[in-house]
């Protein structure tokens, strides 16, 4: 009997490309670039396996982060995807929370979008330094809790935390607004020179505030 499939002997399927595949491929490309840039930052900053937060180390690390993401094309959803990658040790083996926070701050500060929403709920990460130097005209909304140094050096932007924030929240902020829906830690507003911090829960301790205002549960606590 003749082979019933004979006519299909030379058929070779066209490489199927559905729009979703394209989107996924381009997203993967962006994510690879974001991870590589972060890895470069880690290489530059964490040579001694420990990265300590200090005035100078933060400034230097942020400058390096800005350099590493220069000319990169990404969107808010890519930043969110990066948050997932922080939890994935196979792709991001050194998720240093301070560096991650600074890196994401740099990404947020240089993105085209005016409003950025990040969801940290149900994620096992405690980002520090998020909102660093958030510029005027930007609004960063975070669902979930943040770590220490949240919104330090805030530069006119608006940071809304739908959860708790750690110590040194708003330290050194110049202008803008930080709203924390739950509680904050100690040294809140340390060395701040302008702007406002609204805490709807409890403030464990207010720092040495130079200028600016801090509110707790609607009432002013500083000055």
């Amino acid at each position, binding site marked *: 009997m003749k*082979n*019933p*499939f*004979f*006519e*299909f*002997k030379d*058929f*070779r*399927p*066209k490489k*199927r490309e559905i729009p979703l595949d394209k989107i996924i491929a381009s997203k993967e490309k962006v994510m690879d670039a974001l991870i590589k840039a972060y890895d470069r930052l880690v290489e530059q900053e964490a040579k001694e396996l420990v990265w300590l937060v200090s005035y100078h180390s933060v400034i230097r690390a942020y400058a390096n982060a800005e350099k590493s993401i220069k000319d990169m094309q990404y969107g808010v959803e890519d930043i969110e995807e990066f948050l997932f990658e922080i939890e994935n040790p196979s792709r991001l083996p050194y998720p240093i929370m301070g560096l991650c926070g600074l890196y994401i701050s740099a990404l947020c500060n240089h993105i085209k979008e005016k409003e950025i929403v990040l969801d940290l709920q149900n994620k096992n990460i405690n980002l520090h330094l998020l909102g660093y130097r958030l510029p005027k005209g930007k609004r960063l909304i975070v669902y979930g809790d943040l770590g220490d140094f949240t919104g330090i050096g805030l530069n006119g932007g608006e940071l809304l935390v739908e959860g708790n924030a750690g110590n040194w929240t708003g330290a050194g902020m110049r202008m803008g607004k930080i709203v924390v829906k739950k509680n904050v830690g100690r040294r809140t507003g340390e060395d701040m020179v302008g702007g406002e911090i609204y805490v709807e829960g409890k403030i464990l301790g207010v720092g040495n505030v130079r200028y600016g205002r801090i509110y707790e549960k609607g009432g002013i606590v500083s000055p």
Partner: protein
Amino acid sequence: MRKSLKNIYDFISDHLYFYRPDLEINGEKYNSTLLFSLLTTVVQGKQLIVGEPGLGKTTSAEYICSVFYQIPLGTIWLSEVAGHPEQTEEKIVGRPNLGLLNKGIESVVWSNFVQLPVKIVDEINRLPETKQSIILDGVDRGNWQYLNEMFTNDEYCLFATANYQDLGTFTIIPPMLDRFDVMVESKHPGANISYLIASFYKKDELLRHEKYERELNKLLNDSKLSYEVKMERIEKVYANFSKHLEKMGLQPISKQKRKAIRNKIEDMELDLDANAFLRTLISELSFCYKYGQKRANEKCEEGCHFTGYLCHSIKNCISNRFPISVKLYAKALAWFLGDKQVNVEHIKTVAPYALSHRLQWREEFIAIYEKETRVDPLPIYLAKVAVDKVLERYGEQRESIKEALAVAYDISQGRQIAPLEGDHPIYWEIKRDLGGL
């Protein structure tokens, strides 16, 4: 040659058979009865024409056959078999030559129906089933037997007409229906064209020629002439009648040209999509996961995984005659339209007409569609709905189905790879062919 065929189509639609187009192919409109009748003569097929009385079922076939084979209309009328319960094999096929029988010699006088290539059975469903089978058996094989003699047609086609069921009709049983390649409906042309037809009631005269009709009748009834001599002389009369047709602007097609056309049609190939689509269609009409194949006496189970496919909507299994009919007519259609290969569009056009009389639908399927607005009779409408549904499914996974078939070829050649998995019955059929189930 293609032009000659189009010329026949145009001549008949302009002068003889007035209709509304009911079929659109590649942007051009056609009448399904006329188009399929023409293709039936070309491919030597078997066509069932249904419809209300007096709507041109028989006449459309007569006109097409007269022009295509260059036989005067009067001769065709004399060769027709009329369906009625008293019809006998002697009237349909042939009778003993009584003169010779008296001398002790057994010889058969063949009927005009047997001798002419054109075979028209008027109102076939007024013939009892056994007599329907005499005709279809003969046409199926091209051989006619009576006593110990045999008559062979080297060229033939069959048209049978059927009225919708009334008190005087018999049923055409499914195995008999299956022998028809296609079924079409000769529709009412609408009030205005119908009014026009009334003004042209003498249009038959165009295809009449008394002299040639007399000559042909004499030759057909001359039992003394040997078959070869008789056919040679008949062909000469056909040639003379063809000159008469030429005067009306027709381009008759000679026997040699008809043969050449058939060869060209035979050589047409199906492109891979047409090929895969036809396999997909057949798989839905024959597959049963539980019982191996569809069988008219086995009920489809409720809650079966394959409920969404046609196998769940039909009672019977499609026969092997179906792909033969579809391929034959699709090739002829593609050639007629001037296309190089048979594509999905050709298969999609032909398939409903080759399916409608072959399928027994489940009541649930009929109930969904019978009240819908339509121009076709229910069996053709349902077949069109079914083919569209399969085409939709094929469109969604055409590359995958073709790949599955290609992989099946590789496996059958000894490559150690797994067959492509899929939900559609075609994937399961492939696996069965590869011995996987």
